[in-house]
């Protein structure tokens, strides 16, 4: 579905004013495209069957988000080599003539919008058509004519040298795929005519910000057209476009990417459990645990449009055969909706395997990891790192009398050096001790009955259900989501200057009943979303802007 299609008929939700008068906008960023954004973009342009690979190095988590770390990332020489290999592969797939025996399609027939009269001879008109169309989507804005002419000349030379029109085209595409202006998403700014003295993103940068925020991909053709026409600076038209983007199935990609980032699910790539301690923790379980939580979130927030806080008290989720062996419940093949019984201790995201297994050691649970994750990922609170000389011996070789994790972590509280931080993490982590390091339910540990009482910021809780309710009622839960989403959308860590916008969004989010689609809509429509400060680049030249902006950062 195109960006503007049907938008006029669709009811546009009202977007509360969330920009206080004294707010001056976000910092302009240059950020590296993430692997998922790169893949989503390539798939949108050329089709989902293309093998993209993962040529990117991991990003450093910053201010709670990997996406925010993209604003301070570079591209190393080694990474560039990987990118070049990936780009070469993608380009070869795009111009592939296909092979019936190998069952590969002739992609050139439908991805190149014209055919040369002779495939061994250069056809500049056809090359120009392909390069213009493709570059606009890859660079997220039209290239200047002069640059297109240069690329056509490069394709011409490649065709002549290789005696193959498509090979020549492929070399140009390969070059575009690793162009810094493609790999780095630069906020290009311009004076804001509506607010003299202020700066705003230019239309194409705003299109990119919206698209990466809501779809985790580069803008599509319709969104670029809207940018070209200036519709994004018309509040009413932008609201319609945002509404359409929220109604698009691609919103699921965006929401999944955000929560995958916020909850630190990149750690699943390195999650390993001791097969002796947890034989049920197979690769399929680990993969499905991540998927289960993301499905739960999408269903709850986007399909059912429910209160974000209820994710911590809901018994509704989805089940797969692999996960069912850990949850110890019956299921059917594939993913099926699942409702935990009312007297089950499984309540909310904190009792899903994704949270429990990530917050654990390879062979035992960890109240500390779980408490830390709960505070940092979901409440945006900072837990200090342990001192470098911490003594783990009491945990690694616990006394025989220390049968439960509570017995073992109580040791921390006897040591003043440890107690300061462990009082922050352990009291709520211990409430989840009915779940072992794989997330499997248990009532005893080494024969001792597990005590699951604890506290969360002064509130006494007894068991996972009460902890879920305490999370639901915690004021930092929703404000944390607002902070993370705003940071995610604007492409970098928050600054003190963002506080007025955050406070306004917090209030407005509450008034919507904590509906996340409404929050997305409010952020995307707010003036704060496209007003910028401390601009590193103040000109609109698409050709020079990105590179200069990258250099400035």
């Amino acid at each position, binding site marked *: 579905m195109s960006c503007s299609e049907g938008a006029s008929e669709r009811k546009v939700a009202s977007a509360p004013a969330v920009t206080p008068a004294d707010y001056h906008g976000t910092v302009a960023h240059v950020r590296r495209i993430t692997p998922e954004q790169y893949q989503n973009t390539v798939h949108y342009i050329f089709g989902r069957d293309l093998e993209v690979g993962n040529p990117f190095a991991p990003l450093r988590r910053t201010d709670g988000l990997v996406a925010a770390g993209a604003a301070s990332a570079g591209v190393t020489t080694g990474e560039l080599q990987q990118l070049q290999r990936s780009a070469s592969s993608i380009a070869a797939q795009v111009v592939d003539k296909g092979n019936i025996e190998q069952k590969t399609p002739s992609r050139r027939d439908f991805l190149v919008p014209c055919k040369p009269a002779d495939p061994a001879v250069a056809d500049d008109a056809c090359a120009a058509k392909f390069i213009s169309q493709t570059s606009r989507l890859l660079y997220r804005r039209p290239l200047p004519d002069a640059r297109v002419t240069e690329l056509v000349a490069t394709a011409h030379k490649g065709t002549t040298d290789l005696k193959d029109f498509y090979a020549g085209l492929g070399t140009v595409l390969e070059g575009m795929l690793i162009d810094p202006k493609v790999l780095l998403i630069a906020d290009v700014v311009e004076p804001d005519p509506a607010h003299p003295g202020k700066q705003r993103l230019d239309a194409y940068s705003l299109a990119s910000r919206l698209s990466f925020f809501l779809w985790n991909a580069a803008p599509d053709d319709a969104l670029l057209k809207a940018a070209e026409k200036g519709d994004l600076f018309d509040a009413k038209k932008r609201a319609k476009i945002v509404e359409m983007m929220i109604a698009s199935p691609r919103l699921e990609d965006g929401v999944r990417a955000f929560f995958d980032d916020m909850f630190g699910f990149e750690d699943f790539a390195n999650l390993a*459990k001791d*097969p002796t301690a*947890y*034989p*049920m*923790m*197979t*690769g*399929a379980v680990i993969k499905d645990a991540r998927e289960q939580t993301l499905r739960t979130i999408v269903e709850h927030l986007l399909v059912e449009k429910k209160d974000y806080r209820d994710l911590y008290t809901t018994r509704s989720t989805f*089940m797969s*055969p*692999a996960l*069912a*062996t*850990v*949850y*110890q*419940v*019956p*299921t*059917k*093949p594939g993913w*099926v*909706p*699942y*409702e*935990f*019984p*009312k*007297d*089950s*201790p*499984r309540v909310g995201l904190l009792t899903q395997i994704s949270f429990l297994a990530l917050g654990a050691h390879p062979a035992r649970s960890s109240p500390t990891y779980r408490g830390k994750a709960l505070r940092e990922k979901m409440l945006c609170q900072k837990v200090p790192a342990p001192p470098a000389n911490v003594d783990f011996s009491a945990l690694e070789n616990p006394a025989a009398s220390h049968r439960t994790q509570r017995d073992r972590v109580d040791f921390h509280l006897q040591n003043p050096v440890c107690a300061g931080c462990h009082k922050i993490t352990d009291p709520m982590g211990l409430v989840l001790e*009915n779940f072992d390091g794989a997330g499997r*339910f*248990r*009532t005893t540990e080494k*024969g001792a009955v597990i005590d*699951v009482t604890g506290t969360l910021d002064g509130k006494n809780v007894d*068991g996972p259900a009460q902890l879920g309710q305490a999370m639901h009622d915690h004021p930092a839960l929703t404000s944390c989501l607002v902070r993370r989403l705003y940071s995610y959308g604007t492409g970098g860590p928050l600054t003190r200057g963002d506080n007025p916008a955050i406070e306004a969004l917090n209030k407005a989010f509450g008034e919507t009943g904590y509906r996340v689609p409404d929050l997305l809509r409010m952020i995307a429509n707010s003036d704060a979303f496209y007003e910028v400060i401390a601009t590193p680049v103040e000109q609109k030249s698409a050709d020079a802007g990105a590179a200069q902006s990258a250099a400035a950062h």
Partner: protein
Amino acid sequence: MKSMKVWSTGAAGAAMLLASSAMTPSAAETLNIPGLQNGTIGFVLTSSAWGLYQTPDGKAECPEGFNEGPREQFKALYPNGGTVEGTQLERESAARYPMDKEDNFAYREVKGAVGIGMNLDGKVGANDFTSPDGVKGVDNQLYRAIGCTRLFRGPDGTYAHFTEMWVREMGFNRVLVELTGVDSLENDPQVDVTLYRGKDKLITDASGANIIAGGSNRVEDRFSKRFTKTLKGKIENGVLVTAPADLDWVWSVFYDHPGYYGIKQARLQLNLAPAGDRAEGMIAGYTTIDTFYQQLVRAWSTHHSSYGGLSQPSLFRALHRLADGIPDEKGAMTALSSSIQVKFVQSFIEHPDAKVAAVESTTKTTVEPARR
């Protein structure tokens, strides 16, 4: 495998469990049994092998050695070779029509006194074995017939090896056992035991080597109702036993060739783990010659038989010679007493008429009981 040892010894094992974990009896009664819901618990077959008692060198049970197979017989019959029709095809024909020609090759039967199985006829006769743990009167004439043929001997006889492997890897031979009306896995005077054919894959653990308990499997009832059979049973000291009944035991041979063994007066005897996650034991009864031999002829080629010293024509005669059950109208025995050693893990069994059990589970007994 300490835990296996504990639970496989029934009542004594339960006592050991209590003692070793210093639990009180009341605590033991509240052992979490996730697989037992509303008095129902299911299991899926993960291992099966004909009950053959084997000593390391085989001399105790096969003092005359092991049987010769197609290669040796071919060499003896056709020392100078011959036409394809007169040699190879003749032997292929003999496998399918074993009574068309005489077969004068010596056939080595089990001569030992120890056998695995049950006392099916309630008698202690001259041909009966004594079980490894001392039970007399064990009937297992199939063991006598095939126990000295390398093909059937574990762990590396090709028949034993592949059938064991295919229980896990193939789809047709997915045997489900569902116990209903269960009050206790330790003692229950009356339970219903129903066998089904399942249709879902088994789930392995992180090592990939073991089938894990707690999976789910759907009953295949579109084409497999013939394999559904309900038996009357009881549980005593953690051991499930069922009353005799005729049934077809689904068995897949050689790359998913669907098949079965007709077992008359079959009965199950399974040691149930207290946690309900495993069960192992045997099924014993009279296996019909027709179904047993048909499995071999349909799916076990001369090529494979040659690797295990199996002459199908010679075996055919032995099966009839040793048959001890289910006489036909003329009084000829048509089946052999036998046993199959089986292992199961707990599996949730999904019935075709059930909606998504997961969604409905709010109405069921909780799997993970609320913390007390």
